[in-house]
């Protein structure tokens, strides 16, 4: 089965790959594969989903909202003050990609809290994780650095 790849008009090579077909599927497949790994360890489904949710939070927060700039020097540092989330789609808010990436942690949170039967302390960590992730993806938080954390030198 073939898909058409149309080159997008995004000049930022760091984020342009996200507009090609197949990205969303790969993202979801990676999440599911980690679930399989965790189940092999023999923990309860609730713990597996919670661990998946929390590790997803750590990884995506670090790479989407903490690391700034691009991993290559070709663009001469124009994006050095922007995190990956702020660079994607050229800074346009509320595009399809952004909406998808906001929905995924919420869905994970719902599944994780359901399978752990809403017990503490898992519920607390899950809620904190999803709260931080979703607030970081709000359009109003574009280029906002709270208390100057992670601001440019």
């Amino acid at each position, binding site marked *: 089965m073939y898909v058409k790849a149309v080159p997008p008009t995004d000049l930022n090579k760091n984020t342009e790959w996200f507009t090609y077909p197949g990205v969303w599927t790969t993202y979801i497949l*990676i999440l599911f594969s980690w679930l399989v790994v965790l189940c092999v360890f023999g923990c309860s489904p609730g713990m597996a989903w919670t661990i998946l949710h929390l590790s997803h939070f750590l990884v995506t927060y670090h790479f989407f909202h903490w690391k700034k700039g691009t991993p290559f020097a070709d663009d001469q540092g124009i994006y050095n003050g922007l995190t990956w989330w702020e660079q994607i789609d050229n800074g346009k808010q509320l595009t399809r990609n952004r909406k998808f990436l906001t929905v995924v942690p919420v869905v994970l949170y719902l599944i994780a809290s359901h399978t752990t039967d809403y017990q503490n302390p898992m519920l607390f960590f899950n809620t904190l994780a999803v709260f931080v992730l979703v607030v970081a993806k709000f359009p109003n938080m574009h280029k906002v650095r709270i208390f100057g954390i992670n601001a440019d030198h």
Partner: protein
Amino acid sequence: MIAIPYLTALTTYFSYGLLFAFGQIRDLFRKVLDWCRSNNLQGYAPICLGLEDFYVRRLYLRIQDCFGRPIASAPDAWFDVVERQSNDNNKTLKRTEKITRCLNLGSYNYLGFAAADEYCTPRAIETLKKFSPSTCSTRVDGGTLTLHNELEEFVAKFVGKPAAVVFGMGYVTNSAILPVLIGKGGLIISDSLNHNSIVNGARGSGATIRVFQHNTPSHLEEVLREQIAEGQPRTHRPWKKIIVVVEGIYSMEGELCKLPEIVAICKKYKAYTYLDEAHSIGAVGKSGRGVCELLGVDTADVDIMMGTFTKSFGSCGGYIAGSKELIQYLKYTCPAHLYATSISPPAAQQIISSIKVILGEDGSSRGAQKLACIRENSNFFRSELQKMGFEVLGDNDSPVMPIMLYNPAKIPAFSRECLKQNVAVVTVAFPATPLLLARARICISASHTKEDLVKALEVISRVGDLVGIKYFPAEPKKEHQE
């Protein structure tokens, strides 16, 4: 349009994700291990932040031996490739004394002028003896020889414009001309896959840059209408000037530009057209005059025509051709003319001789033969590759044909396997191409004989089976009647 098998797209993303994850883990360990070691910066700031060379350190260096291979002879159809070896897993490479004779499928040697030519080389040597290798001066100070004036007239006549100006380097031609032609308050609309020199020149000019979807005239019209209606950012005043920049043949796609439609749209909205013919001048068109001749566009409709001499003419340098007033203006203002050394005399003579050969003014029909040869070679090679099931981009008649690889692991596999069988190919990956679309780019030359092409096809087919890049079903061979 590139058609990717869906599974390949998923596996490519997964592979890049894995490479990225491994790179990050290695960086983490390096940071932990270096925590104790004190740095010897002595108060100076580090030259680069650890993030911006992540791609080079963790992905590019792993397959460094596939790029930048030194060669030890002229880049003819067959050339000598120097072998390199590495003791520390490709972090550093050392040249050895051994050389291998390989088939050259990577050089931009479209008309075969890269090696010694019976008409051009004696004349270039004569000019070398008469004028010496360098003019040792800029054009305005003392570096304009009679050769340069002759060359500019020749180029203007060849391209079909009233006047031309030549520069010593092709990249510099784009990056030094665009800032002169347009400044703040102007608009540059460039194709999304334009060459880095154009992007550099556009950024250096200070004009606003907008990008339109590759080779899509309807999107160009949409962008033009939107931008003309909105005007300059924030003040909404009308734009001072609009220039649309396109290329004749896109070097990574092998596609021809849809020039007639784009020129029609530019005329309708009164925007200037800038055509970069680096790969198409001398290589396409009935008499080698480039993409305008091939597509039937009148050269008077394209305002600025730019090209380089490195690809089809076997020399170095670039030119800009346009109206007499434009060229006169450029000679007063362009920094590459005022401050850069003029084009080297033997190089200039090589260009003049090769243009004479192409036009048939040297008294033989070698020029027409070369043009017919490259057209036949490209069409033959492309159709054979497509029959074998490879995904090959590019239009018919274009001598550049990228073969899609997609997965990052197939890039070094293809490159190294081909080199083992004495075929040298150029592979291109991120960030020169989009992340998913890594490719091996083949450049056909007029000096490739039929046997060379058949050998190349055999090797590529074998390596393609080994590496697994025949994404389309192969056409069944016709049964021979015996």
